[in-house]
């Protein structure tokens, strides 16, 4: 289900009521609450991964552009998005930005919106702008189904997505202590499914998994704990996540599906102005991300906080080839790791990579070298 490129469940959900709408959104973050409140389903589009053969997409992109836009175009041309009413392209980079124009030129959906996230974090400046951007999305949906987004509806939706993030965080918290209870690949599947099914159903699945891994299952193994960073947009193939495990690592923190856990904490569910609450949450509670200009809260400090919080032994910088946002952050973050004596490795991948032999060897050597150091590396240095 998590990798269903036909979006079966989403279409089925839409077919049950004529006022329902499907709005596809690209990585990284989009406040799905607002679509939910408008009787819609926001569907996360994460490219074709290694499950879609690219034939036409390569005619749209030069070889030195990352892979995800070509697989998204391939999906569009092969009618995978039939039944989708609109598309949102959150600002993250020029590739995604220009992809919004390509969707407009292809006439995909009834609306295509590039969602410009503010880089000014004062409420009356960037907040006002962002709130207006969100209202524009709601206006588009209203034109399609006439559903009025009331305060009560939006507050209700906010609550459901608060719960969703809460459950995802719980999974990460449990795995931090007991990573053997659920593999990183299984966790990835469970979380990723949230992109393509209604939040109510996802919350049920997450609750069950939380319960399941709340009890002891499986056996601890001698693996190091790592944090993977840089994979927030074009997704690593599932085989790569498994390879990291096979090479001796428990992934206890990652940014694979960062958008689903974007807001750090809850959004107010009692606000008389819920759009304002969503806006404020973006301004004040966004995570460490390549798409956010980090005024007064530097990304290297945030990375160190995360390392401390998750008690990891090392960091894996994994970025899609040609991804400017991730790759330009890495020297900054890696310098911090060097300065703080935090061990790391880095490599690049593409969503359709099939061979992981070299990566397995690299990660294996990394994990072995950490295992050989018998004292905790981070404790003193942080």
């Amino acid at each position, binding site marked *: 289900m998590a990798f269903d490129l036909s979006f079966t469940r989403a279409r089925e959900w839409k077919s049950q009521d004529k006022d329902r709408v499907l709005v596809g959104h690209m990585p990284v973050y989009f406040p799905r609450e607002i679509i939910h409140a408008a009787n819609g389903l926001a569907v996360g589009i994460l490219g074709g991964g290694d499950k879609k053969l690219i034939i036409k997409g390569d*005619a*749209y*992109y*030069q070889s*030195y*552009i990352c892979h995800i*836009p070509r697989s998204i175009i391939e999906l569009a041309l092969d009618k995978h998005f039939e039944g989708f009413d609109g598309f949102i392209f959150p*600002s*993250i*980079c*020029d*590739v995604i*930005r*220009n*992809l*919004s*124009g*390509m969707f*407009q*030129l292809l006439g995909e959906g009834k609306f295509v*919106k*590039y969602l*410009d996230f*503010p*880089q*000014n974090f*004062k409420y*009356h*400046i*960037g907040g*006002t*702008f962002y709130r*207006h951007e969100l209202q524009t999305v709601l206006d588009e949906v209203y034109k399609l189904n006439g559903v009025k987004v009331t305060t009560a509806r939006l507050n209700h939706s906010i609550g459901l997505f608060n719960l969703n993030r809460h459950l995802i965080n719980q999974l990460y918290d449990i795995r931090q202590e007991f990573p053997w209870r659920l593999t990183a690949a299984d966790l990835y599947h469970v979380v990723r499914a949230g992109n393509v099914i209604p939040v109510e159903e996802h919350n049920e699945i997450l609750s069950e998994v939380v319960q399941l891994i709340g009890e002891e299952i499986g056996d601890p193994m001698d693996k190091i704990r790592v944090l993977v960073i840089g994979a927030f947009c074009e997704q690593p193939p599932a085989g790569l996540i498994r390879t990291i495990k096979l090479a001796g690592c428990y992934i206890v923190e990652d940014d694979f599906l960062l958008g689903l856990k974007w807001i750090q904490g809850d959004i107010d569910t009692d606000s008389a102005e819920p759009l304002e609450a969503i806006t404020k949450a973006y301004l004040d509670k966004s995570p460490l991300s*390549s798409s956010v*200009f*980090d*005024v007064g809260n530097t*990304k290297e400090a945030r990375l160190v906080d995360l390392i401390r919080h998750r008690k990891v032994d090392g960091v894996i910088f994994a*970025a899609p*080839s*040609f*991804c*400017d*946002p991730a*790759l*330009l*952050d*890495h*020297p*900054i973050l*890696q*310098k911090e790791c060097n300065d703080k004596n935090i061990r790391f490795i880095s490599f*690049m991948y593409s969503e359709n990579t099939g061979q992981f032999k070299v990566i397995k060897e690299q990660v294996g050597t990394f994990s072995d070298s950490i295992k050989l150091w018998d004292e905790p590396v981070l404790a003193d240095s942080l």
Partner: protein
Amino acid sequence: MSKEVAKERSMIIQKEMITRLFKELSGARETGKKVVYTFVPGNISELILSFDMLPVYPEINALQSGMRKKSGEYIRNAEQHGHSEDVCTYVKCDVGMMLNGNIGPTGEKIPNPDLLLLSYTGCFTFLKWFETLERLYPGVPIAMLHTPYQEAHKITPDMTAYMVKQLKEEVIPKMEQVSGNKYNEEKLKLMLQNSSKVEDYIIKIFDTTKNRPSPIDAYFAGVYYIGPINSGFRGTPEAIDYYAELYNEILTRVEKKLGPITPEGEMEEERFRLVVEGPPNWTHFREFWKLFYDMGAVIVASSYTKVGGVYDMGFRVNPDKPLESLAEYCMNCYTNLNLQQRVDLLSKCITDYHADGFLVNSIKSCNSFSAGQLMIMQQLERKLEIPIGFIESDLVDPRYFSYSNIKNRLESFFQMLKQRKMIQTLP
């Protein structure tokens, strides 16, 4: 083609202007003038100059390093410091230049910034670039000016209001603090009057390519023509003088029915008229240009010359509404237009300037230009049934300039244009 290349007066004026600016920059520490690093697209030099500060454009430094054959080494240095091979080479060239003492094109040291003005217009990499510089120059304040993208094919009042608020509450206070001067709106208005005149000249200059032969090359020479307005002279009287002189020279060429000036003299026969999309290659600029003028190909319009502002559709800065106007200027830069707008603008250029062909120079570094270019080609081919050519290179990374590859592709393209012309002239 004549090999005698006499410098036109405008070229001498431009050289003097740039030399003076770099001299002023190298003496900034002694004179106490503050230095602001910023970007070409959405470069609000008028505001910087109104505070008596001096602008520095890391992109211009990078392209100059490319032309001076220094960029290869700088890029390698940046890669040795952890930068990936896969990212924008302007950033790496700038980082490398800084690691090598920040020596500018005139051989003098460019002073460190007192303020980083992140005019984040039309390119996400700018954000990452200044995050990098912020670490290389610890403690230097950053003023962010986020320019919303023209995603809905227009500038809305909310977009303008957002930018004006950023100018008022973020950019201007930081400029006041750094420069020690108060914001002077009257001074800014006067500078905007100057800019508006220069914008008129720029349009008139690039419009002369309607003539046959075209008196100028709007890409290879065009990048020199936009030099002053994109490197710190927006709003200055010198810019008006320069552009007035340049325009007069070009008018004289039109009267005499002369073709463009190239590094090897006048181009005598105009065989092909092209519109080019994408930045040029700087490391092999002369060789690259020669491939065109040797074939009698003249560029009658290019998107790259609009990167620091698009005036073709009527936009001019309005001195009566200075901040609104600066905001709209930023939002109107070429890479801040969405793809449909870019297709429309290129299509207008192809039609207005009677181009025989459309060529894309796809730059490995630059997603802002490159992502979507193949679709732009498809659209224009379908809409105008014009021959399309495609070459690839990089801005400043010499490893990505393959002379023979580009030459082969261009020869096939010119062959196609020739055949088409022959067919068109058949009775």
